[in-house]
């Protein structure tokens, strides 16, 4: 379990980082926290010629409030966001989901944007971003573009990022209410979810529901609150639509059953939250 030979670049600025990406394109990999990439390197699943280490780029190490969004830079670790004092007030869903992301030790290294970039279909941060309707900020020498979560995350470990682009930040819309629920089913604490369900009440009459672990990326829908009485039916048809998939820990059928059971419970829990 030793990686192939590669060059290592630690740029001092975002400009330099995107310049390296422009030069090497496909042959470069971006290293932030390394919680997925290092294992892939050691297993020789990823074989970059150049590793671009952005973990110490100070200009990307920020959490800031911009208009009605929270922008999280690409060097911000999961624990740093988890400990951000305004998180529970502004992004209660993210605050609820972050403790499920790996373990304390892995969150000290793993980054928020890295998790988005890795695009695991059952991972919690992409689910939170999709559920809240957040966006991903990409930079290259060609300029900047901002993609909504569904446009960015295309499928299993697959995103719309171009080889010369760097994810510089993600933006979560500030949640308008504290009424939400998040639940996941995993074999052990810290494992990727078998399924995860998030429900957030947006403004008095709409609820956004996000489901992870059922398909190749998070599924999100928006439901009118007065229709939530039919939550059971929503999840019955959602389970049929998404189908689920088999792995060692859960069958597609088990995933569907879990969704039909957990989904309505999460919706109810969100509704029970005081307005």
């Amino acid at each position, binding site marked *: 379990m030793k990686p192939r030979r590669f060059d290592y670049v630690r740029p001092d600025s975002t400009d330099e980082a995107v310049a390296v990406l422009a030069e090497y394109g496909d042959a470069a990999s971006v*290293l932030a926290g390394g919680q997925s990439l290092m294992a892939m390197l050691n*297993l020789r699943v990823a074989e970059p010629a150049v590793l671009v280490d952005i973990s110490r780029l100070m200009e990307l190490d920020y959490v800031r409030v911009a208009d009605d969004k929270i922008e999280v830079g690409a060097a911000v670790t999961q624990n740093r966001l988890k400990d951000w004092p305004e998180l529970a007030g502004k992004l209660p869903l993210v605050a609820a989901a972050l403790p499920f992301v790996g373990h304390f030790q892995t969150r000290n290294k793993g980054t928020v944007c890295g998790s988005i970039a890795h695009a695991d279909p059952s991972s919690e941060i992409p689910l939170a971003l999709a559920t809240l309707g957040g966006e991903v900020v990409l930079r290259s020498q060609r*300029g900047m573009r901002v993609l909504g979560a569904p446009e960015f995350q295309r499928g299993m470990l697959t995103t719309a990022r171009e080889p010369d682009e760097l994810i510089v930040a993600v933006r979560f819309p500030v949640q308008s209410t504290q009424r939400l629920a998040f639940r996941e089913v995993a074999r052990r604490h810290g494992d990727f979810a078998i399924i995860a369900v998030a429900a957030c009440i947006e403004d008095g*009459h*709409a609820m956004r529901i996000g489901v992870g672990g059922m398909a190749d990326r998070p599924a999100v829908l928006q439901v009118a609150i007065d229709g939530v009485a039919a939550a059971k039916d929503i999840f019955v048809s959602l389970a049929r639509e998404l189908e689920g998939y088999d792995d*060692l820990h859960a069958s597609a059928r088990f995933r569907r059953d879990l969704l039909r059971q957990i989904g309505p419970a999460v919706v109810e829990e969100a509704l029970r939250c005081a307005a």
Partner: protein
Amino acid sequence: MTGLGEPLVRKEDPALLSGRGRYADDLPVPNGTLHAHVIRSPHAHAKILRIDATEALALPGVAAVITGEDVRKLTDPFLIALKQPVHQWSLAVERARYVGEAVALVVAESRYVAEDAAELVAIDYEPEEAVIDPIAACGKSAPLLHPACKTNEISVRKFAYGDTTAAFAAADRTVALMVDYPRLSFTPLECYVVLAEYRPHDNSYDVLANFQGPFSTHPVMAKALRVPGAKLRLRIPPDSGGSFGIKLSVFPYIVLTAVAAKVTGRPVKWVEDRAEHLLAASSGPNRITRIEAAVTREGRILGLRLDQLEDYGAFLRAPMPGPLYRMHGAVTGAYDIPNVDVTNRIVLTNKMPASLIRGFGGPQLYLAIERLVQRIAVELGLDHLDVIRRNLIPTEKFPYRTAAGALYDSGDYMRAVATAIADGRLDDLKRRRDAARAAGKPYGIGFAAVVEPGMSNMGYLSTLLTADARARAGPKNGAVSMVTVNIDPLGAVSVTADVTVQGQGHQTVLSQIVADRLGLNPADIEVMLEMDTGKDPWSIAAGTYSCRFSPGTAVAAHVAATRMRDKLAAIAAKQLNILPDDIEFADGQVRSHYNPDNALSFGRIAGTAHWSPAMLPDGMVPGLSETGVWSPPELEPPTSDDRINTSLTYGFIFDMCGAELDPMTYTVRVDRYVSMHDAGILLNPLIADGQIYGAFAQGVAAALYEEFVYDENGSLLSGSFADYLVPTVGEIPKLEILHQQTPSPLTPLGAKGIAEGNCMSTPACIANAVADALGAKDISLPITPLRLHALLAGEEAPVPLGASPPSPSPLAGEGWGGGSRSIGTPVPHSPTPTPDPSPQGGGEQARSA
């Protein structure tokens, strides 16, 4: 202050907890050391047609590529316990028999270069049909792993004790069960490490490896390397990152790395990585047991029949089939059953070879017996605990000779059970059960009663052979333990022992034992457990395994320290002018028991033996080095009718627990768990409890989490820690430990083994609780949500009428990224605007993490 029996904190911990451990991979290597990487078979069964290393050897920094043909020339196959042509070398020869089997070794200047070169080695395989399932492997048409054996079922032995046929004829009824124990391991944090040097001038090998014993494997390695044992110097590092039995199976790699050192003429180091470890290091054997009891209406077991089919994977490595025979004398468990028939079958399949893991045959046996006892209660309409109590060996029968020949040294099982359920503990479990069931949740109570053997009889494995074959091979029995106590000219005491460090806290306990004899403080006793077969006293039984420490090595320490004490007393008596019997050792002094003022310091007496042999009593040997050797006579060879006392001591465990099933997630939650232990006298209760916690965690792992899962082609599906689930502290339920101390009459310290018991009892106890909760007969381990879901979920619910879905349709354009639908009032929703200055890319593998 001497502290034997006191809960002394471990003296090992400050170094280990502050990063000062001296683990195998941390130790310095000689200049010029090369690094090895193992190329492994991707096939479960294949002929190896050709290995071409030309390109690899051309890579700068590559020293050698060693293949099966090389090891066939340079070494002999490993000795095995059975007369069958199952030949294993340290690399696959001609044929690969499991996914992950070592096929070639690349040796290079660094591990990086070795792994680069490995990709350049061209290996042509001709895949053959593999057989994974043990029952299929016994079939007539099954592909043969070792064609020369003409069968995969390489050993069938039938044993009969008492008159089981008559017992079944006399019974009111019979109760039968099939029990399947899965494949799993207990993974240490530290994987295998070997550093080998070949010394051509005297044709010897000097090897450092984190081997754990038993040292019965040392002759196996020496024979393979074609050298006398003394030419294979094996050194074990001072600290270990855990073993749990696994580190025995480093031995083929010791031979392989030694060969590499000989071929290259340079020291060679190999460090196993985690992927290799899970794929190919070792596993406990899976076992299928058909068990049947002849019972009375009241649930008394008159006779027992067991047919045990144990799957050892692709080879039968020494000292296999230990798990099938280690419990042989104790095959009737904690119960008074005079009649038992046993059939033991060994089968080989295309999986990694099985070997030692903690529990060593106990978990497989007790899952069968304890599940059966629960079934007897269910089928007879009796209370499970009543059936247990009706069959437990009565207190007055100790010492108790089992049907199969074990001599249970002591015990009071009835009192242990009574204590465990007392103080409202069982009532509380019943209250919890009733409340959960009233709320509609499946909840069950499980029990398990097991006997925990300690210190194996080295002769037990020969029960595998017929009495005639044993007579021809010569007697094998006993188990020797050795400890040496040294005292330097200033009176400083140091101790070495024939155990290997695995983290049990043996240094602490040995220091307590020796300090107790010499009137010193345990902190004054240095215990050094790095082993060196070239310099330390050891026997074939040496090593840390099968709970041999407390009944074995601890006793040898007591013997050595007592001899040292007697010697010092004799020296002191002469100088103090009193009788040796009047000497006492206390507070660092050697003094008259009657007149404590008539005293000399411990150091002064010790110095005499070094400085002035002339002052010693007549005939005394100068110097202060005493080796205690302990070899209990009760470990006799198997009798001509195959009765065998498989171990020296037999502790007792009674477990009970409540388990609840979450009907939503199909997860088993262990609600309350009580474990009652009788391991004789506890030498250090804190360390004893630590061992119990550890074994319990691994028992929970076996019950609910860990399994090596193979597909039908023999690929390992649980080959990473994302799929092979080791429970973490958050998954381990709270454990309540109770003790009773019935001394072993057969050891001077009265202590028995304690460190494996919950690996044996806990899987059975949890399985019984789940069986009780579900009213189910067949419980497969591990009891995973997926298994329970498959068992309980039934037909998938149809989509309800009327809801006939406008299937949830995506709102924001593409796929399931953002969809919306309204049931009731439509809500306005504007998708996130996406300013997009650049062309959209197609799917692209994410590259940052």
